[in-house]
């Protein structure tokens, strides 16, 4: 019996760490999609970009791991602003198809660019000592890196929840997601709000990309490989919902980890099966608006 309990605890722990990665990377996508209804398939490219920045900062410039995460996230957040201003903005009123094509084109270009500079071989990052090895929580030891991931994720959830629910800007974002026209007519500058959330979301994606290196290794194809996963989290959670994204990330992270433990050959089958079932029952996701 204690054996089963050990397995369940490891699955929950690993699943939770995985869910935090999914949440951090997808939350920006969810909010920007909820705000503008923009299908952004280049979101994974920003995550990948952040990951490579972290690799360069740590390997070439010798910056420690945690500061380079922060620097990469900030840098990618700023880099994403001109993309939003000059490319995305032109297509807000266009069809889904045109948005899909533009952003897939951007994703391809970014993959090619990073392959040119970094090559197609998976990269890793040097971790500080306190992130290697295991951490003992009294009743058993857990891998430190995953524990770190959970702590970062929990911290971000708290900050985002506060920003979303308790600040003026958060209230404006919620209003604009609910009813964009109404929000504009009471004087909220939705365009600027969108640029802000887009930059924030891309920065968070970059942070997620940096955190993912240790988990999956980083190649340029990360941009498309994990994109489907982020989109699934967003669609299952419901557009523009913080709560929904968190719930979807938890459900998918934990069930996928458990599924891969029980049936290793099934791969991502569980994730896709959940997605199909959830979307058929609730097409707008857990907390989306129909």
């Amino acid at each position: 019996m204690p054996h089963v309990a050990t397995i369940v605890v490891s699955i929950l722990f690993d699943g939770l760490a995985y869910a935090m990665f999914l949440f951090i990377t997808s939350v920006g996508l969810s909010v920007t999609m909820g705000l503008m209804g923009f299908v952004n398939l280049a979101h994974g490219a920003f995550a990948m970009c952040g990951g490579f920045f972290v690799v360069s900062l740590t390997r070439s410039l010798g910056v420690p791991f945690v500061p380079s995460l922060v620097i990469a996230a900030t840098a990618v957040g700023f880099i994403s602003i001109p993309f939003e201003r000059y490319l995305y903005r032109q297509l807000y009123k266009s069809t889904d198809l045109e948005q899909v094509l533009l952003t897939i084109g951007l994703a391809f270009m970014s993959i090619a660019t990073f392959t040119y500079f970094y090559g197609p071989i998976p990269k890793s990052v040097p971790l500080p000592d306190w992130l290697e090895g295991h951490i003992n929580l009294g009743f058993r030891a857990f891998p430190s890196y995953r524990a770190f991931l959970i702590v970062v994720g929990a911290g971000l959830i708290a900050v985002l929840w506060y920003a979303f629910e308790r600040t003026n800007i958060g209230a404006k974002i919620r209003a604009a997601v609910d009813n964009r026209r109404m929000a504009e007519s009471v004087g909220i500058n939705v365009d600027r709000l969108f640029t802000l959330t887009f930059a924030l979301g891309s920065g968070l994606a970059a942070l997620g990309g940096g955190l993912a290196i240790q988990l999956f290794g980083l190649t340029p194809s990360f941009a498309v490989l994990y994109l489907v996963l982020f989109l699934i989290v967003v669609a299952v959670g419901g557009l523009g919902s913080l709560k929904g994204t968190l719930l979807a990330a938890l459900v998918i992270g934990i069930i996928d980890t458990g599924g891969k433990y029980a049936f290793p050959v099934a791969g991502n089958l569980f994730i896709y099966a959940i997605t199909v079932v959830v979307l058929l029952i609730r097409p707008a996701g857990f907390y989306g608006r129909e």
Partner: protein
Amino acid sequence: MAASETMAVGPMREQVRERAAGFLISRHHYRWPEALPWLIAIACYFVFPDRMTFGSQVLVMVMFALSLDLILGYAGIVSLGHAAFFGIGAYVVALGSLRLGWSEPISGIIAAGVVAGIFGAVVGWFMLRYRGLTLLMLTIAFAATLQESGNLRSDITGGYDGLPGLTFDPLFGLFDYDLYGRTNYLYALAALAVVFYFVRRIVYSPFGQALTGIRENVRRMHAIGSPVHLRLVTVYAIAAAIAGVAGALFTQTNAYVTLTVFDFDNSAKVMVILILGGTGRLYGAFFGAAVYMILEDYFSKLSPTFWQFGIGLLLVLAVLFARRGVLGLFEDSSAYLGKRKKP
């Protein structure tokens, strides 16, 4: 008063009907430039006798893009999982030949079309109630589910290593396959001609008009009492069947198939081909597939990285400047030049 109104409406309705019928029939006539792609395809058979395997691949992609054009270009259904049906067709033929000993090619592609069509009807019935992101995600997830299921039973499907060395009977028991794939090329061309005739009939039929109506304004189609969901499911099943036939041809001409046919990349590729050629215009599929495959063949040997960058850039430029594809660009510029000449 009411009676006289209906009296007046009666003959007018007749007139309107006649005009609509006349419009549909006039669109249905063949025009001479339409022979051009076919003549080029036949000419290629004589000019490039040693590149016929590549030629067959182009023809398969044309058919695949044509099936996507039906749902994307005419009905406005955005799917990023169309490779699902291509893969179903590919595996129906492959498994039929390897596990059941069913290696007659023509009945094989018909079976592939039927199976893929049934899948399309069932899946479409569930999925096509939704639009936008939800539909997009469902199409992606469906293709991915098939791929993972195939990988789960890699003892049957061969997994990502694939099923090599498939053999098929000679066509009609007469024409065997030669080393250069010339038989394959003519076989694929004939299949494409049949499929194209069928698609063209659909597109210019009243059913095709209804699809265009759904693409342009769903609400109005609902309002005039068009059975929108039924029409969408029907066209989705037809497109799925055609994609299945294309997949079957792919397997037969390559004698080899792996689970990568279900890849997201494959779904994205066929969409890119169609977009570059131009959607909703039938020949966009021909143009897009030929140009894309030739460029890919050339540039990906040179440098796959530059090829990927180029195709991305092409997509971005197409969305920003040529939303109706290269053929649309031709039309626009000729219309522009025509206007300039007149005054």
